[in-house]
């Protein structure tokens, strides 16, 4: 069979590359994985991209495709979970606990709070929802620096441009230039979920197999190594 | 009809209005700076489209605004030597020279590289780029480039202006041959009376965009009033004579016409062939008795036909030598001393060395009819 073509959110690269290696080692043709922003991938699928599997960084873009009947809805699975955290530079002494109405504005001071785009990028949307829930959004709204994506927000903190930032736990854990002040409680925002599905136009019988492989016990540690929470029970 | 022009054209505040039909083989355009010579040549060459009018050459109609006819330059089979060299900077001299050949059907090529290169003395420059040439060298290459298209009409805008006399002397006989043997009609712009007198069959005198005189060279050259005051000494008589024989001992040639016989430094042509002689008015003395013991060998007998005293110190005397007019420019004082008057029999005395090469030229039939 042909290689499985996977369209995956860019933040999954490390984990998926590792899993793809394992998949190959198990005697399969390696998958061809295209990493880009979920939005771009979704629109490309809409435009006829020859992809077999889509893994989005949020539910919205998966729903976008599902509404257009471009996914095999029965294959859709909520694959991974993540957490958002409040970070600061590694030399900073800033500390706080995240609780309703905590004084984030004071902590940010004259600086900026780096986040991914709060309207467009999942990490930004989750962060904004959490801050709203905690009642501090309006006090920091005009101190937010929205980056193109969560990695760029992380960079802003790592380089000291911004004293604080809200990013995924997966990114923060791996960057020695930053440290995590606190993790946002799960209930402050919608669950952070990476859904995956086989696409309607896919004719490759390996597609479903690859998706199954992602849910397998072999994949689980490789995801967890990168800080993701695997949401599906190992089969 | 070699060249027939009847156009008007505006350029900014300047208006060119020209109408002439020249049957001559070399039509000179003569006139002061800014009088419209280059514009006229550009119109003939197809670089300008006239606002109104018609241009034809050698029976081919180039432009006729009434019929909305405009033959583009590249179909006119002309060779144009521009006032400035306009060489292609990205090509060697050789490539510049050969450029036009691509477009000349080989059956119509009458010129070849070797001949032109030797004529112009540019063999050592062939591999150079134009930017590495001197002013005169560029001009010579430009002449060569136009000649090597083997054109059916040659347009030359002051082609010799930046050349020294030695070069000019080499190129002019070539142009004569082109005119007489290859029978390529030539339109030639020049400020130099002596070039015009030597080469032209017909002269168009321009001033402020208008034609103030047009006619055969001989007639125009006698009208000293047409020449700028400063060139009047250069004007004079143009006689078309025949070789009567050669004097080998003194390396002289004897020329004859109805005006009489004159001796000039040897001209290498067979007896019987036609030679044009230019006699500057200022080179002609007048004697009332046959001079003796004098180094001037040429004496033509005649009668004073007219005296023009319009000018201050000098007068112009027209001497009728057996039907041919010879013009002389002498001082009023001499005129008085000699007691000249219309009808007086006199001798026109011309120094032989006045006929140096630039005043002698072999000619074929200068007009086509």
């Amino acid at each position: 069979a042909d290689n499985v073509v996977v369209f995956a959110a860019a933040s999954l690269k490390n984990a998926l590359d590792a899993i793809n290696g394992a998949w190959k080692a198990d005697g399969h043709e390696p998958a061809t994985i295209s990493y880009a922003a979920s939005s771009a991938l979704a629109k490309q699928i809409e435009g006829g991209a020859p992809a077999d599997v889509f893994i989005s960084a949020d539910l919205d873009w998966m729903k976008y495709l599902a509404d257009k009947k471009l996914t095999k809805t029965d294959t859709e699975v909520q694959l991974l979970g993540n957490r958002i955290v409040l970070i600061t530079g590694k030399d900073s002494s800033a500390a706080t606990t995240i609780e309703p109405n905590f004084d984030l504005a004071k902590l940010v001071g004259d600086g900026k709070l780096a986040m991914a785009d709060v309207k467009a990028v999942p990490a930004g949307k989750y962060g904004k929802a959490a801050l709203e829930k905690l009642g501090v959004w309006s006090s920091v709204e005009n101190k937010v620096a929205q980056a193109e994506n969560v990695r760029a927000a992380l960079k802003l903190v790592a380089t000291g441009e911004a004293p604080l930032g809200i990013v995924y736990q997966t990114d923060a854990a791996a960057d020695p230039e930053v440290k995590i002040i606190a993790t946002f409680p799960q209930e402050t925002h919608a669950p952070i979920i990476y859904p995956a599905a086989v696409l309607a136009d896919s004719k490759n019988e390996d597609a479903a197999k690859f998706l199954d492989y992602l849910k397998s016990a072999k994949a689980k540690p490789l995801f967890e190594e990168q800080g993701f929470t695997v949401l599906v029970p190992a089969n | 009809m070699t060249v027939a022009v009847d156009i008007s054209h505006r350029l900014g505040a300047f208006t060119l209005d020209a109408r002439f039909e020249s049957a001559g083989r070399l039509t000179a355009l003569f006139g002061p700076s800014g009088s419209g010579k280059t514009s006229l040549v550009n119109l003939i060459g197809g670089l300008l489209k006239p606002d109104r009018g018609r241009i034809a050459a050698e029976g081919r109609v180039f432009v006729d605004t009434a019929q909305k006819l405009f033959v583009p330059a590249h179909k006119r089979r002309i060779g144009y030597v521009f006032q400035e060299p306009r060489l292609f900077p990205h090509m060697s001299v050789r490539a510049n020279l050969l450029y036009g050949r691509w477009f000349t059907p080989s059956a119509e090529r009458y010129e070849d590289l070797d001949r032109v290169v030797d004529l112009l003395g540019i063999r050592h420059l062939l591999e150079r780029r134009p930017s590495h040439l001197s002013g005169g060298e560029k001009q010579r290459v430009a002449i060569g480039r136009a000649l090597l298209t083997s054109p059916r009409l040659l347009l030359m805008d002051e082609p010799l202006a930046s050349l020294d006399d030695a070069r000019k002397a080499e190129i002019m006989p070539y142009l004569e041959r082109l005119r007489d043997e290859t029978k390529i009609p030539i339109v030639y712009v020049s400020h130099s009376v002596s070039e015009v007198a030597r080469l032209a069959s017909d002269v168009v005198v321009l001033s402020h965009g208008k034609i103030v005189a047009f006619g055969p060279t001989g007639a125009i050259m006698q009208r000293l009033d047409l020449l700028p005051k400063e060139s009047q000494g250069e004007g004079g008589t143009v006689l078309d004579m025949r070789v009567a024989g050669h004097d080998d001992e003194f390396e002289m040639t004897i020329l004859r016409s109805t005006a009489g016989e004159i001796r000039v430094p040897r001209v290498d042509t067979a007896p019987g062939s036609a030679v044009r002689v230019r006699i500057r008015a200022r080179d002609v003395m007048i004697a009332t008795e046959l001079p003796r013991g004098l180094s001037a060998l040429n004496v033509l007998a005649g009668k004073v036909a007219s005296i023009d005293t319009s000018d201050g110190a000098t007068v112009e005397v027209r001497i009728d030598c057996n039907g041919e007019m010879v013009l002389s420019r002498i001082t009023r004082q001499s005129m008085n001393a000699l007691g000249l008057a219309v009808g007086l029999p006199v001798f026109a005395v011309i120094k032989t060395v006045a006929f140096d090469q630039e005043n002698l030229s072999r000619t074929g039939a200068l007009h086509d009819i």
Partner: protein
Amino acid sequence: MSWLQLSPEEWTAVRLSLKVATWAMIVSLPIGICVALLLARGKFWGKSLLNGIVHLPLILPPVVTGYLLLITFGRRGPIGAFLADNFGIVFSFRWTGAALACGVMGFPLMVRAIWLSIEAVDRKLEAAAGTLGANRAWVFFTVTLPLIMPGIIAGMILSFAKAMGEFGATITFVSNIPGETQTLPTAIYTFTQVPGGDIGALRLTLVSIVISMTALIASETFSRRLGKRLDLQ
């Protein structure tokens, strides 16, 4: 210096980027020359429109350009479908699409460079060639074209360099498929999206710089030699 070692997949991206940039440059060259000629010399209705369209890829965010390409040259797009059905030319998710995206993004740069050179040409030389018997096409190929070489070379290097760096339109139009559409910039992008990817991004960035500098210096050398040959100074 083992971190400088490229993985096979990265080598593929390097090769692909070279291929894409080269094709983008080569294919857009004749079109660029024609359009530059039209803009510099033409007098026609809609010239401003053409001018505007040429500049669009510069004006629009690259993502938008990519998206526009996707909906016109994609499999389901009007032009894309037409070309695929009639000529078998497919852009979507092929390296050809990446070349198209890069070519389009570099097009305004190329056109401007050539246009500027055309305007500097002494038209009297063209007229002179005309009097020597050359028709318009000959004049163009023997006089105009050699004289605008500096602009053409500049246009080519700009187009090539832009293609080496083009990311937004490419990833939006043809995605980031290893071996097919994953060029150096998209590969670099992927590295920047994951923890620990900086080294990889740096490595590929260096490769990209080395390639482009080589191209740049080669073009300068060529241009200078040509200039000497042309005596254009």
